[in-house]
């Protein structure tokens, strides 16, 4: 039994098993249960990294649940898959890499951050379920399975957002998120039903090989695109994002960013793989580009006027999602033409590189916001100031994150934005200019945060200075900061070894299909 063969299943099964185990252990002992989640997610992290590099070097792997061997996707003598299949191609492995990293960091950070909450076992169970949900979403190769994991992710993140039930705003944010995600997931289920009714299959590869692009398929595509873009937080369906991101505990917010990106992954998977062979690329590409540009611009302008630090960062998350949509949307709009090879592929690389960069620096920024909240007990920027005197590590990490999100060289944000600017300029110069303007406004609003939270005279509250946060919170932030610096200094290495296989996997639906169905 080769462990890598089983990695796709184990990546989901380990967090699930640990989540169930938490509730069991809770009735036996209350001591030291905080560390179990970190250990399980640490194992998951290692598994995720090894699976990702295996996939990048030697092609997609599939995992068939319940078959007599993991790779046996077709029953003998038949040409259609019948069981649930997990398929880890480059894109899935890439998203799994992000998900495992961020969830490990979130669990490590939560050890101290969440210590004050009661019913701690529920908190960690939900954290593990959120991890399992988002990993399942990115690994699955089955439409209905995608819906199930979509629901797990929604439910877990709703409860975590509303976890501080003594705050009325938390409960409100939870309900709003719940309502919109339930409605969107039901419409996704309608779309899945339509595709099943037409083609009698649920496997993404099988449906992709049969798809006709009839009117019914178009309706299903519209339902998919809208729902998944909404969950990714794109304007004008972004209203839930600042609420939920703002009210969730900081480590959860960092993971919610990854969960949103899992929806973004779903969007890309649907347009590139599921409909990839028949889609009218120009129409759908422009829809995605327009959503992206709106997200970039409205997100960043709303961020400038915020005074709540986490809401501000949440609006930036919207605006950065716009960059990914723009990059990949340009790739889609040029898909299949000469322009794709000239600049479309580079734009896609930029968009995909931005996904991993954003997961890390926005995660780091939310964690620093959490660290500030942990000590000062406020999220209002007007009431902060002078934290740089005592919280030295947090200040440094915040500076790294802010420089990365604003696209200052030599951090990773610059590398991905450079790719997007230059390739999008060839496609349409106006889009590129808007993207640069947004970048400047991003820098401006983070200067505002830095100025009002960290600079200024030293503050004293209740006769105490604000100390540095506990060591495992510092370590958690340090891991992400280190990754940002590495990704910024070695952009060529990251592009060649991680981003390029991912972009290639995303832009070749036939490879995805033939992994399941064999050569056709």
């Amino acid at each position, binding site marked *: 039994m080769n462990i890598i063969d089983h990695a796709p299943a184990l990546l989901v099964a380990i967090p699930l098993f640990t989540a169930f185990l938490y509730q069991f252990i809770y009735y036996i002992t209350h001591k030291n249960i905080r560390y179990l989640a970190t250990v399980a997610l640490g194992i998951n992290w290692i598994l995720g990294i090894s699976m990702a590099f295996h996939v990048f070097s030697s092609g997609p792997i599939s995992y068939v649940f319940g078959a007599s061997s993991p790779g046996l996707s077709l029953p003998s003598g038949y040409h259609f898959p019948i069981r649930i299949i997990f398929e880890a191609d480059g894109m899935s492995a890439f998203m799994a890499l992000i998900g495992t990293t961020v969830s490990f960091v979130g669990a490590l950070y939560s050890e101290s951050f969440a210590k004050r909450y009661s019913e701690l076992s529920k908190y960690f169970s939900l954290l593990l379920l959120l991890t399992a949900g988002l990993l399942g979403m990115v690994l699955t190769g089955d439409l*209905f399975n995608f819906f*199930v994991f979509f*629901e797990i992710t929604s*439910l877990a993140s*709703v*409860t975590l957002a*509303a976890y501080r*039930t003594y705050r*009325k*705003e938390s*409960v*409100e*944010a*939870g*309900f709003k998120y*719940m*309502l919109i995600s*339930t*409605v969107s997931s*039901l419409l996704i*289920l*309608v779309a899945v*039903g339509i595709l*099943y*009714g037409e083609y009698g299959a*649920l496997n993404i590869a099988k449906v992709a090989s049969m798809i006709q692009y009839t009117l019914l398929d178009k309706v299903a595509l519209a339902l998919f695109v809208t729902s998944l873009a909404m969950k990714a937080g794109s304007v004008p369906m972004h209203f839930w994002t*600042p*609420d939920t991101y*703002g*009210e969730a505990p900081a480590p959860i917010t960092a993971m919610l960013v990854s969960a949103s990106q899992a929806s973004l992954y779903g969007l890309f998977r649907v347009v590139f793989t599921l409909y990839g062979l028949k889609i009218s690329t120009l129409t759908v590409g422009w829809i995605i580009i327009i959503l992206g540009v709106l997200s970039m611009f409205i997100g960043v302008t709303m961020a400038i006027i915020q005074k709540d630090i986490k809401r501000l960062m949440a609006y930036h998350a919207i605006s950065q999602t716009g960059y990914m949509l723009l990059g990949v949307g340009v790739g889609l709009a040029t898909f299949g033409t000469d322009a794709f090879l000239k600049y479309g592929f580079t734009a896609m690389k930029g968009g995909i590189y931005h996904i991993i960069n954003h997961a890390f620096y926005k995660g780091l920024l939310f964690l620093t916001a959490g660290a500030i909240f942990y000590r000062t007990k406020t999220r209002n920027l007007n009431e902060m100031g002078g934290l740089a005197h005592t919280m030295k590590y947090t200040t440094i990490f915040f500076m790294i994150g802010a420089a990365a999100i604003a696209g200052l060289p030599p951090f990773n944000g610059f590398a991905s934005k450079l790719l997007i600017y230059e390739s999008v300029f060839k496609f349409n110069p106006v889009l590129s200019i808007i993207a640069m303007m947004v970048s400047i406004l991003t820098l401006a609003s983070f200067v505002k945060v830095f100025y009002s939270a960290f600079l200024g005279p030293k503050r004293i509250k209740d006769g105490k200075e604000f100390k540095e946060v506990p060591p495992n919170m510092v370590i958690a932030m340090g891991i992400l900061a280190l990754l940002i610096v590495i990704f910024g200094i070695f952009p060529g290495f990251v592009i060649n070894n991680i981003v390029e296989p991912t972009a290639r996997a995303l832009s070749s639906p036939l490879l995805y299909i033939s992994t399941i169905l064999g050569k056709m």
Partner: protein
Amino acid sequence: MNSYLAYFTALLLIIMGIYAVIFKRNLIKIVIGVSLMESGVNLFLVALGYRQGGIAPIYTMAPRGHQMVLPTPQALTLTSIVIGLATTALMLTLSILLYKHYKTLDPTKIRGLMK
């Protein structure tokens, strides 16, 4: 026309659910709207799997010489029913908590996040 009746009913339920979610000024009514959407989706899925003149896909004591209806949509609908119960329970719990905090069920008055 008659053969599309179940599809139409399902879609009608979904549209009515969306209508309730957008226009009703009561949290419980909104949750009822979501429940209606769930019922519509379930009906749609089961209707997809029906086969004219078929029997239930169970071999125990089945009559001979008939085709069976498609079993997959039924399995999916089972899953979706249980998921529907889970979401309903969670939404109702959240609305109880919202009522505790805001003393109202009117969604236009639950705007604490906007200050």
